[in-house]
């Protein structure tokens, strides 16, 4: 299957997630473009719905997840390249009144 069939976007080269601009089935090999010079082939591990994110490189548990070149949260567990990144494995760090006194 041609990688050109599936459109994705990465906002800044330092980001470790990209956004699917259409539904991508599991197992698809896609090309993600970081910049005019740099792109990489990634195997999508699980189905990614339009608008959802996937990891463009391995993200270790507890490290920052970046989109727009900015921090959008931390990894709750190790996330492999091509895995879906969402509320199940990404945790917001702001406005966490539930964590007061436990950190």
């Amino acid at each position: 299957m041609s990688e050109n069939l599936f459109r994705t976007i990465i906002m800044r080269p330092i980001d470790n997630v990209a956004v699917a601009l259409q539904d991508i089935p599991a197992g698809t090999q896609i090309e993600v473009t970081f910049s005019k010079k740099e792109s990489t082939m990634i195997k999508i591990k699980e189905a990614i719905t339009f608008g959802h994110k996937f990891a463009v490189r391995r993200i270790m548990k507890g490290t920052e997840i970046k989109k727009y070149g900015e921090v959008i949260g931390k990894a709750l567990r190790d996330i492999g390249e091509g895995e879906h990144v969402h509320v199940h494995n990404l945790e917001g760090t702001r406005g966490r009144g539930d964590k007061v006194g436990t950190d």
Partner: protein
Amino acid sequence: MTKLVQIEEGKFLGYRRPDGKVGVRNHVLILPTITCATQTAKQITELVHGTVSFIHQHGCAQVGIDYEQTFRTYVGMGKNPNVYGVVVLGLGCETHQAKSVAAEIAKSGKPVITVSIQDYGGTLTSIAEGAKAATKLVQEASAQMKEWCDFSELIIGTECGGSDACSGLSANPAVGAVSDMIVENGGTSILAETTELIGAEHLLANRAKNDKVSKRVYEVITAMENRSIHMGVDIRTGNPSPGNIEGGLSSLEEKSLGAANKAGKSPLNEIIDYAEEPNEKGLVWMDTPGHDIEQLTGMVAGGAQVVLFTSGRGTPTGSPIAPVIKISTNTGMFDRMSENMDLNAGTIIEGKETVEEVGKRIFDEIGLVSSGKLTKAEILKQHDFGIWRIGPTF
């Protein structure tokens, strides 16, 4: 499509008010200052063509800064230049006295008439007296000639609601481009929804006009974030919403970084309180919650004549007195909810248009809408209103 009038870029046909400000609509507002008067106000609007009102649950047993915020919101709705004249309708015994609200609105020089249900002898008499007063105002308003005005006289509110992962890629950057164009034309653009700027505050602080504004950015963000921390709750139980999450947004920070795009690249000149009128032109930030209707109400009460509202999930939201131009972030939703959406920015996602091209389309639409073209929310009588309460009721 038939065009009523050729609009020159950056100009519109508006209504000049006694205080020099310009309205893009010529409404007669029936303004209930207390929840007990809202049904009577609604009945007056059903009798008299050209009148609008809104339902709410405020106006009594409120104290301190919460009293002041509600009072400021009522006055701001009446003073908004889209309103020709106002019938202020009170019950009589409430904390937010109709005559006090009316006196503040009257300072703008526009006609204001007060009706009190207890003083006038009840519901039926108040409907009759309110309707008589409104009839006179509507006829006067209908005789007012429009005049050519400049975009420098516009205050544009910007808002995103029902965001998805495309919001930060298409519609919000396009609104950012429009915001910059409004600022370049000497107008005012309001950025709001403080909740949805948590995580993006450093980007805005860096663009602050001076240190005072930069410091204030962190103060309003900290105050908003502390509300959830003091309650001992995870802010994500309210924001991002279930629809945002289904759309692909995973955290409040991610939503905020997309939402901040609405502010374009202009310097941040001022931070104002909820429902407060901007003192500066250019880009200003109004401290509001992320709740769509409360934010919209705050910006309109602050004097916004037109609101740009982006949505990924789709929303019917509108204001009783200000046109709200609804812009979809993706083509799928635009096609699905065409009865509510005015413009589509999904073309950016598809690679068919650039952010600047969509921005220019929105800019031109502002000229048409400000000259009288109705938005979908206006046609559907979507008269939403809600005040951000910051204190308990007593």
